[in-house]
């Protein structure tokens, strides 16, 4: 099933300059499944979104159709066909 992933500007250079990725995920899918598909196409992008144990980076937020994924089960958040996943670095640091 198709899913759209929206990238912040800082990550676009490692995704062929794209702001919007169209990926195919198995149905039913979780956020982890979508990120697996992203990592397969763009490993340099995938490792910036998750660590090697497939954990979501602490200061990277994933909004699944507008809802922060941590309220939906984190990496296990269900993702529907044609969903839009927005990647936004959290406001952190000093």
């Amino acid at each position, binding site marked *: 099933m198709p899913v759209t992933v929206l990238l912040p500007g800082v*990550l676009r250079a490692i995704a062929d300059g794209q702001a919007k990725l169209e990926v195919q995920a198995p149905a039913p899918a979780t956020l982890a499944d979508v990120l697996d598909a992203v990592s397969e196409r*763009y*490993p*340099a992008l995938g*490792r*910036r979104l998750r*660590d*090697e*144990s497939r*954990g979501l*980076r*602490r*200061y*990277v937020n994933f909004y699944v159709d507008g809802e922060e994924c941590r309220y939906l089960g984190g990496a296990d958040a269900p993702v529907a066909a044609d969903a839009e996943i927005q990647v936004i*670095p*959290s406001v*952190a*640091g000093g």
Partner: protein
Amino acid sequence: MTQKVLLAIGTRKGLFLATNSGADWEVTGPHHPMTDVYAVAIDTRRDTPRLLAAVTSEHWGPSVAVSDDLGATWSEPDHAPVAFPEDTDTALARVWQLAPGPDSEPDLVYAGVEPSALFKSTDGGKNYELVRGLWDHPHRERWTPGFGGMAVHSVIPHPSDASRVTVAMSTGGVYVSTDGGESFSASNEGIKAYFLPDPFPEFGQCVHKIAQHPDRPDQFFAQNHHGVYRSDDGAHTWKSIADGLPSDFGFPMVVHPHRPETIYTFPLTADAMRFPPDGRCRVYRSDDAGATWTALANGLPAEGFWTAVMRDAMCVDDADPAGVYFGARSGEVYASRDEGESWTLVAAHLPDVLSVRAAVI
């Protein structure tokens, strides 16, 4: 004539590169902005030195970047260059140390990391594999984090025997392998762990830094979490060399590039008072392997220096006479081109300095 030196300065918010023209320094950067650079290495085993930088973004995670043109351009592999294997169920927090191997193995580079582990590269520092001998050590479950995390922060490959490597971690102590990393033995006899019920345990010490001169591979120096030590028998046993220092607390320990008996450190008052004694900025040098110490302060702030020098924020170059360098958490970097006799400011107002390395280019 003053030799041209490249000084790499890793900070909390990126890497800065300084080169000298005579007595003046030109600083570029930040390279890799908004990453903490706990470790940087200048691998001089190549015609053009290779720069390796451990860069960790709070957002996007850790990596190792490599430059073969003295920092003009950098590269990283698509996949994570340092990553724990799946069966460990562990994720890399950051790389704390990058250590080129002996001249006989020009593509061997080690990485010490958090959580405490050792990785090994056989392609010049681009890609690394976990050294299982340390990871599988039965002591590992009893290593504990220090204030800054739990990491292998010191890696000293033997200068001529690629099967031997010595590491140190906080906390955990010193471990030695003589079989290429297949196995490691704790090597802390004589190093005090005053914060444990048994003050002289087999392991568990909070060693802050160890150093060695390649001409004396059996002699090591250690700056401990209270305690300054020397080993003359390959890190098996250690004895105190703290007499003559204003404090036995501090982080760096550096050996002169040409005189194995000359060492440098930067004392802080105490664990609970992590400032230079009296707020005076002073490097201490011993020219007799720790028997006596001399304060070096010519050109350094005589008062009001309420900051600290971290474990990798002091280094020497390979010039003759040797250059000595250190950076402070308050963003100043100082250089001495005469082995510590006098100092000049290289840069100020940088982010917290975490690591420095220098080499003649």
